[in-house]
């Protein structure tokens, strides 16, 4: 039987899966993407470097800071701008807030896929609210910060920001324990996720999995460690990976990354260097190219920018982590037994974001 799963926003997201099934077994899984294709790569060719900030953030509204960082760093690399250390630390803090936002949402979604909607999804969304408040205090907006600009950040840290962040982190650390005890250690979740959607290490690497999906299969790679950018080189944090490669391991990687993100924010906010928070960058960027990699919540994004010396980029190619993970997902039935009821669990353990897959 062929099942058309989606496209509706709740749970399937703005995309559709075509399932070919035999009874309960899934024989073939075909993701149907493109429902949110906006042509961002084309739009960027027709915007100045500063105007490009807004469309780039629309790649992933959950994780705007990390995607924008890739774009801004590409401009800086071509223009050969040295970003002040203070700006690097502020960027790192916002990137980690963005990562926590995204991972919390992912934790809520996989809980929803397992039937834990009222307890876990609503908790994670409520806790995410606190980080949105912190981001609002810093940037003036809650989601689409548009806070990074070529040369630094838009404004300096407001007074009382550090106290506010530490207050939220103290509370959140207690909440992380609650999530562990009531959901990750919960027999209900373990039975739904352990051994479900197993992705072997060699397949994860060669099919091109990214981010927590890759690390959940035991491959130790994180762009923040492999090619440290911004303040990550100075900060002490662990690279999280799990060996099992199942839906539980992928969820656990995200959970443990939130624990690390809290550590990163704490250390960064205590050590913000004094100095300027931005330097001027000319409107016109010289002819050149840059390939910049940034670890977003969903994995490594590669942004390839080609410039021709005008006020707009000639071409911007965005190598999306979600598209890579969706390809791996489409191949899952070949090497992992998948039941129809497992599809939502496996899908949200991959945590694809269709906005950045579609671009």
């Amino acid at each position, binding site marked *: 039987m062929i099942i058309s799963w989606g496209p509706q926003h709740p749970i399937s997201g703005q995309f559709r899966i075509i399932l070919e099934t035999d009874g309960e077994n899934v024989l073939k899984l075909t993701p149907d993407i493109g429902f949110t*294709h906006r042509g961002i790569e084309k739009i960027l060719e027709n915007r100045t470097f500063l105007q490009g900030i807004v469309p780039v953030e629309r790649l992933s509204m959950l994780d705007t800071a990390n995607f924008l960082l890739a774009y801004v760093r590409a401009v800086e690399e071509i223009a050969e701008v040295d970003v002040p250390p203070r700006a690097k630390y502020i960027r790192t803090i916002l990137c980690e807030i963005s990562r926590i936002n995204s991972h919390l949402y992912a934790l809520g979604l996989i809980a929803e896929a397992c039937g834990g909607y009222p307890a876990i999804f609503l908790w994670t969304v409520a806790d995410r609210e606190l980080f949105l408040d912190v981001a609002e205090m810093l940037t003036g907006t809650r989601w689409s910060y548009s806070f990074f600009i070529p040369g630094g950040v838009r404004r300096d840290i407001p007074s009382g920001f550090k106290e506010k962040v530490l207050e939220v982190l103290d509370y959140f650390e207690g909440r992380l324990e609650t999530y562990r005890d009531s959901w990750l250690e919960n027999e209900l979740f373990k039975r739904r996720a352990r051994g479900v959607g197993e992705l072997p290490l060699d397949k994860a690497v060669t099919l091109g999995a990214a981010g927590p999906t890759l690390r959940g299969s035991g491959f130790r790679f994180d762009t923040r460690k492999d090619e440290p950018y911004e303040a990550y080189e100075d900060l002490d944090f662990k690279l999280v990976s799990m060996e099992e490669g199942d839906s539980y391991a992928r969820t656990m990687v995200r959970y443990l990354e939130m624990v690390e993100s809290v550590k990163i924010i704490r250390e960064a906010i205590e050590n913000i260097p004094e100095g300027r928070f931005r330097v001027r960058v000319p409107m016109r960027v010289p002819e050149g190219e840059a390939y910049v990699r940034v670890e977003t919540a969903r994995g490594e994004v*590669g942004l390839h920018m080609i410039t021709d010396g005008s006020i707009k980029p000639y071409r911007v190619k965005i190598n999306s982590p979600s598209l890579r993970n969706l390809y791996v997902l489409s191949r899952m039935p070949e090497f992992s037994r998948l039941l129809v009821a497992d599809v939502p669990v496996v899908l949200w353990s991959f945590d694809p974001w269709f906005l950045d897959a579609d671009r």
Partner: protein
Amino acid sequence: MSNPVMDDLRRILSESILDLRELGKRKISITVKADNLLEAARILKEKMGFDVLTSAGAIDYIAKKIFQIVYYLWSSKRRTVLILRVNIPRENPTIQSLHRIWESADYHEREMWEMFGIDVQGHPNLTRILLPEDWSGGFPLRKDFDWRGGDAAFQH
């Protein structure tokens, strides 16, 4: 300081290379002759350890009348990014599919086909991936695409 990956590339692919340069730490760009693409790709995977294709795309150099096809490769052992490029004429552009070498080329080659109108030969399933099934407005990422107009069917 010499980069061992650069030295290996220069030695193994010598004849096929048109351009080879470093883009940054652990990032290399290589341009090979279009006729040698398949052979070079196979060597890169089997002898050089570039086991992952993370993405592929194209650049429309309309003034030079060429398309540059760009493959983004990565080596899980050497932890190095390799940007593999070939230039093909803009008139009737065709390229051999690399799907048999790197399976993950699947989605990216389909995108290249629908966005630039590049005929990917030997691809097992060359169908639309991002654009609507009834799209008839041309190839959106080409430089001569009129982005103000778009598809007539979408104008109300």
